[in-house]
């Protein structure tokens, strides 16, 4: 695996963006450790938002500037702190009145040592924050906000990283082991309650200190590299060195280390012969293994003593390196007999900095009240540092977190007894799928960039920006091909999110705006006659037409390249689309069961996660909504908060609903009586992560007692949620418009997914008895 780590993201040009943002820093905090320093700052990011109007003749670009907030972290070696402060002084202090003359928060052991220097350089006072409080705050923040933050390490899986996302399972209490120069172990009881229950002085500083005495390596990273090449068995005394075989009586396997460095111990009888020369790499490895093992063992003993089942490791010791992760995991499994779990953090080094920053933000804003999302476009992955101005000879790690406009919460109708994983395929594990999708996204990027340019006719440098976007996205795809686990699990959803983030960075707020307008206009014109035709049929036929309407509408997807070709040629009509659908039996065909259900009592409230603009929403979803309303079911339409492809956004849907209502009394009345609600989903993706949906939507779902969830489209019902379990009835409806995906599921192009899943409460209850 070593070849992954040699690779850096230098080419992706991230540092330029980060430094531009640093110039706009509003607030700064430091976490200064013995070896590494993290600079945290908050910056205002302005983005363009395209304004939607229904009139397709509005050619002028209606855009507004929108402000967002982004939290940046730069992780660099403490020895560059002077250059960093100089950079901050030149670029931030002169300009920003927000930082000037104010107090800067700092944490970490070095906060004490560098207090003076910071004061001299920046002319600001340092307010020292309690280190442990900062660590806990940072750790809780990451575990609650960042998908795939934590992972377990399974040596024999490929890849060995198994990621875990924030879930509905209780987080507290847990043991946080922070490995800095020394090691602190904290029992975290709640957001604010923490107890230091132990620690050990054998930590990162011991590895570095002893390593510097015993080898010529300069610094932590070089020592790690040495250790990766070495063989500790030439320095350590193994059980089999003592026993000459395995030690069955006590149950220790022969490869277990009986005495670290034991082979290096000389005795008087050896003095006659020349002392054995031990190789530096073997010594470094023995050192790394003995310290990691010791930390694992002491962590396990502490966890046992306090009856804690999960141990999270923070600090910047493991650096997510396989030997360290494996050794710690092995020690904990071994000593706890598998009862205690070792969990590592992708952002293990940022806990203190995040905590210090949150503390500084606490005094002015409720930073804690917001939700945050990882900005992949501006972050470095696991072990993929980049070069940055102020530390020329060494690499830095970057992390960026976007403050979401509105808070997100866990979907209330997911089954509480099942672990929710949004994605159907994990491309980190599925090499064939990974290859296909990385290539697919790469091939689509030209068309995509082309359309982006077209969406900005008045922008002189649009072509140039699109080219930059293309290069950076392609570079990222390549990096992900080599290191698929760099940003957590790789999925179609994260690939889409990353693309949108890069696109936004290059000022293409909504490339499909014009397309959406055209499609909506066309569909709206057909809407009255479509309803009339529908009403002329008998009940049973109506029900079938309604389902088929959603399916036909769903064919119009600009994200599916096979369909894009038909649509580009402007030859695809709604009826065409309908005729392309595969006949019954569908690939997943629960239509009969659904029909039976429709003959029964109405649902109380349905939430529909809608997909595309145009035919999909207007001729597919709205007639279905009308039928549900007619049956006496309330309906919540959940649309994306941010634009992506031709997916209908919340703002657009509000306008469209009024236009639709003009030709439909039922919808007019329902909007007025609040029996039909238009709500934003909090998403900006064709996929749907139900663990992070808009809290307003969650409130509405709870208030109106949702008992039916409808997921529309490949992104929401196939790429994600295909196997998700709900605590109520659910319809998963999509048309497969991608040949690979269709084949994977055993179907064909235009195969139909119509999954109707009932909820059996006794099934869930049964688990408790």
């Amino acid at each position, binding site marked *: 695996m070593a070849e992954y780590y040699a690779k850096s993201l230098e080419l992706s040009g991230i540092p330029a963006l980060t430094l531009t943002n640093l110039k706009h820093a509003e607030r700064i905090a430091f976490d200064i450790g013995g070896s590494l320093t993290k600079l945290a700052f908050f910056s205002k990011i302005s983005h363009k938002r395209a304004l939607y109007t229904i009139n397709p003749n509005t050619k002028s670009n209606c855009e507004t500037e929108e402000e967002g907030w982004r939290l940046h972290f730069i992780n660099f070696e403490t020895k560059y702190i002077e250059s960093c402060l100089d950079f901050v002084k030149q670029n931030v202090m002169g300009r920003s009145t927000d930082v000037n003359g104010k107090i800067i928060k700092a944490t970490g052991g070095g906060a004490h040592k560098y207090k003076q220097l910071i004061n001299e350089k920046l002319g600001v006072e340092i307010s020292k924050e309690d280190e442990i409080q900062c660590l806990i705050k940072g750790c809780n923040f990451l575990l609650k906000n960042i998908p795939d933050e934590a992972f377990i390490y399974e040596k024999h899986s490929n890849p060995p990283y198994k990621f875990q996302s924030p879930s509905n399972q209780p987080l507290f209490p847990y043991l946080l082991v922070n490995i800095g*120069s020394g090691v602190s172990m904290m029992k975290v009881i709640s957001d604010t309650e923490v107890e*230091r229950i132990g620690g050990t002085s054998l930590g990162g*500083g011991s590895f570095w*200190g002893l390593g*510097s005495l015993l080898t010529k390596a300069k610094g932590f990273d070089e020592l790690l590299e040495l250790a990766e090449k070495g063989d500790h068995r030439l320095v350590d*005394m193994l059980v089999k060195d*003592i026993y000459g075989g395995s030690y069955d009586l006590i149950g220790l396997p022969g490869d277990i280390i009986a005495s670290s460095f034991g082979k290096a*111990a000389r005795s008087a*009888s050896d003095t006659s012969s020349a002392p054995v020369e031990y190789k530096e790499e073997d010594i470094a490895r023995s050192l790394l293994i003995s310290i990691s093992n*010791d930390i694992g063992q002491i962590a396990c003993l502490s966890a046992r003593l306090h009856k804690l089942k999960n141990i999270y490791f923070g600090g910047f010791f493991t650096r997510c390196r396989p030997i360290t992760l494996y050794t710690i995991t092995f020690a904990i499994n071994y000593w706890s007999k598998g009862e205690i779990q070792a969990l590592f953090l992708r952002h293990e080094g940022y806990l203190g900095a995040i905590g210090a920053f949150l503390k500084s933000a606490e005094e002015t804003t409720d930073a804690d009240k917001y939700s945050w999302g990882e900005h992949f476009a501006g972050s470095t992955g696991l072990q993929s540092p980049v070069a940055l101005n102020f530390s020329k000879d060494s690499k830095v790690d970057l992390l960026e977190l976007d403050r979401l406009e509105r808070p997100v919460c866990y979907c209330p109708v997911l089954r509480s007894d099942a672990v929710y994983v949004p994605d159907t395929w994990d491309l980190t594990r599925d090499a064939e799928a990974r290859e296909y999708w990385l290539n697919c996204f790469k091939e689509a990027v030209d068309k995509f960039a082309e359309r982006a340019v077209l969406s900005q006719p008045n922008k002189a440098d649009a072509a140039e920006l699109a080219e930059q976007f293309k290069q950076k996205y392609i570079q990222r795809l390549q990096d992900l091909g080599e290191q698929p686990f760099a940003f957590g699990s790789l999925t179609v959803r994260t690939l889409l999110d990353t693309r949108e983030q890069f696109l936004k960075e290059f000022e293409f707020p909504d490339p499909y705006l014009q397309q959406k307008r055209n499609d909506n206009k066309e569909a709206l014109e057909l809407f009255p006659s479509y309803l009339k035709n529908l009403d002329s049929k008998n009940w049973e036929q109506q029900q079938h037409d309604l389902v088929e309407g959603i399916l036909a509408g769903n064919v119009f997807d600009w994200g599916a390249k096979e369909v894009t070709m038909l649509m580009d040629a402007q030859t695809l009509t709604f009826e065409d689309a309908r005729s392309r659908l595969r006949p019954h039996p569908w690939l997943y065909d629960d239509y009969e069961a659904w029909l039976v259900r429709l003959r029964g009592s109405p649902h109380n409230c349905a939430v529909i996660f809608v997909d595309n603009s145009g035919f999909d929403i207007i001729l597919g979803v709205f007639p279905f909504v009308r039928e549900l309303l007619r049956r006496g079911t309330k309906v919540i339409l959940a649309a994306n908060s941010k634009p992506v492809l031709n997916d209908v956004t919340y703002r657009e849907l509000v306008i469209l609903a009024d236009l639709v209502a003009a030709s439909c009394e039922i919808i007019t009345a329902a909007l007025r009586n609040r029996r039909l609600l238009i709500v934003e989903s909090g998403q900006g993706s064709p996929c749907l992560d139900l663990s992070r949906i808009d809290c307003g939507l969650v409130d509405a779902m709870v208030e109106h007692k949702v008992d039916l969830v409808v997921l529309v489209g490949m992104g929401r019902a196939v790429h994600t949620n295909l196997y998700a379990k709900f605590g109520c009835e659910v319809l998963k409806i999509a048309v497969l418009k991608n040949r690979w995906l269709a084949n994977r599921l055993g179907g064909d192009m235009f195969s139909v997914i119509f999954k109707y899943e009932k909820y059996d409460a006794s099934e869930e209850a049964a688990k408790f008895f």
Partner: protein
Amino acid sequence: MPWFGMDIGGTLAKLVYFEPTDVTPDEEELEVETLRTIRRYLTSNVAYGSDGVRDVHLEMKNVKLAGRVGTLHFIRFPTASMKSFIELAKEKKLATLADTICATGGGAYKFEEDFNKEVELALHKLDELQMLIQGINFIDDTYPSECFYWAHPDDEEQCKKVPFDFSDPYPYLVVNIGSGVSIIAVKSQGDYARVSGTSLGGGTFLGLCCLLTGCNTFEEAIEMAAQGDSKKVDKLVKDIYGGDYDKFNLPGHVVASSFGHMMCEDHRKTVCKEDLARSTLVTITNNIGSIARMTALNHGINKVVFVGNFLRVNPIAMKLLAYAMEYWSKGQLKALFLEHEGHFGAVGCLIELIKEKR
């Protein structure tokens, strides 16, 4: 048949020999020549070959064993010299006196074949834990001032060894510090189990010291450590926080990061070999103390008995263990030590030999 017990560890081999002192002239007359040679060789020397040593100060006189009265002799030599020992046994014709020898420790497995071939003696391999516990019980019953603790371990002037009455020992934890460390919980006679251990033990101390200072023996390493100052090498809490870390009850003098100062090149220039040896000793000892303490708490045991040859000529380590146990457990745990540090496994084997003879 001479009465031996042997414990062949990773670094040291331990041999106990029971010398009967109640030999009547008649018996002596009957005694075969080889047995006499061996007895005289062992009891008239304090050093054997280049590195075998008899710990004279541990010798136990008037020991009653299987109806005989005699002296127990404690001998040790590096496991690396095992081959020479085997040659010696061959030379002294040990095989003409007996056909088996009771031994424990990893070396009993490793050198079994050599014994068979070279000396034509079968090694009777015995369980390490069982022998250790058996040895502790026997010695403690026989030797009145075997068990002791350190009073005022952190005070150079007042610090002293105080005898401890170990006649009602259960439950207790045995921390056997040899090359590596084994931790055994003993609940009652015959009810014991290995509950923990660590690879950071005496071998690690010596191995690291050899690499860091170029020293050649354990004694040399300990002497260097006695003269060194670990504060120049280790980062203390106060080095980081400027004082105590009150909020979490961490006094400034506690080591925050072992060898932490050595991250910095300037600091590396200011330390001497003695400082490095001291820091190595403190680091390894405190780490063993931590693991022992938590293991004791996890098993609800408050008497922790430290044994093993790491503690030989090593009052610094004993006092550190005594202090750490008391300080971190707020007086709940007691660190106990035994005079015959590393010889219990061998004694256990001797007892086993006698049991089997009956």
